[in-house]
């Protein structure tokens, strides 16, 4: 099966083509974390993780709470 290149928080990584976001988050150990996700600068709600298929060169931002002013 073909692999695709993804940019996870600006780090390059590879997964199989056709991987849904939900599976990618598991592979990257974010599945049980309190995070929010954007793909190519667009917010992806949690309810859409299962059907959101990742494509070659997608940019994925995964964020978590930090202190802020």
């Amino acid at each position: 099966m073909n692999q695709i290149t993804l940019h996870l928080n600006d780090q390059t990584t590879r997964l199989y083509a056709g991987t849904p976001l939900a599976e990618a988050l598991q592979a990257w150990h974010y599945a049980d974390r309190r995070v929010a996700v954007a793909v190519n600068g667009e917010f992806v709600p949690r309810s859409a993780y299962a059907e959101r298929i990742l494509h070659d060169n997608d940019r994925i931002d995964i964020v978590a709470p930090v202190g802020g002013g």
Partner: protein
Amino acid sequence: MNARDDDTLTLYDETFGSRFLLGTALYSSPTVMQEAIRASGCEMVTLGLRRQNPASGDGDAFWQILRDSGCRLLPNTAGCRSAREAITLAQMSRELFETPWIKLEVIGDDYNLQPDPFGLLEAARELIDQGFKVLPYCTDDLVLCQRLRDAGCQALMPWGSPIGTGLGLMNRYALQTLRQRLDVPLIIDAGLGAPSQATEAMEMGFDGVLLNTAVAKAHRPVQMAEAFAEAIVAGRKAYRAGLMQQRQTASPSTPTVGQPFWHRAGS
């Protein structure tokens, strides 16, 4: 320390006993932050979102501390450089923190971290349409603030001076003009370094104060949080009491009638 029960702050139809909003960055430890929040008496704290390694788990622990504080959460869009970025981060915050509140920041200049008025207004309009409770971090420009109010922002947060400077209220004329011309709640956000500056803002009629660095970077953050809380209450009481008119010439406070030794100096 909170104000009197009958002098509450209302933001988007929600009521707050405290007029002090506190940031959660830059503390030396989570414990110090926790104690500072408690000492401040604040009921709303700001926080942010950043990329994080899944192995750290720091975000979960941090969020749990804030939940335990009982404060309402005000996520920010700090660091965003465009309306698009800020809107996306606000949407991520709403899901993660389960709140429609957002401190909207769109930064226009790296040197003084000045808000970008054009991006800010664009993002505010969009987020209000999406049901967010937007508290925009803005400059003290009157027309910008009027446009933000007209866009549906029910409270505004003009800067005192640039973030993290501690310079206090840099442009009193502009801030006084905002207070005179706008009837929405106004919270001074950013630039305050000393409790006296917070008092000054409250005496001018501002509705609240949001700060972070002045407490987090004090030698004793917990005591400083308490000092700011007292200063904000003092300033608010003074505003409600009504300050005297200033005058250029001296006027004795002790009655001159009945003065003994009247005009007999040297006799």
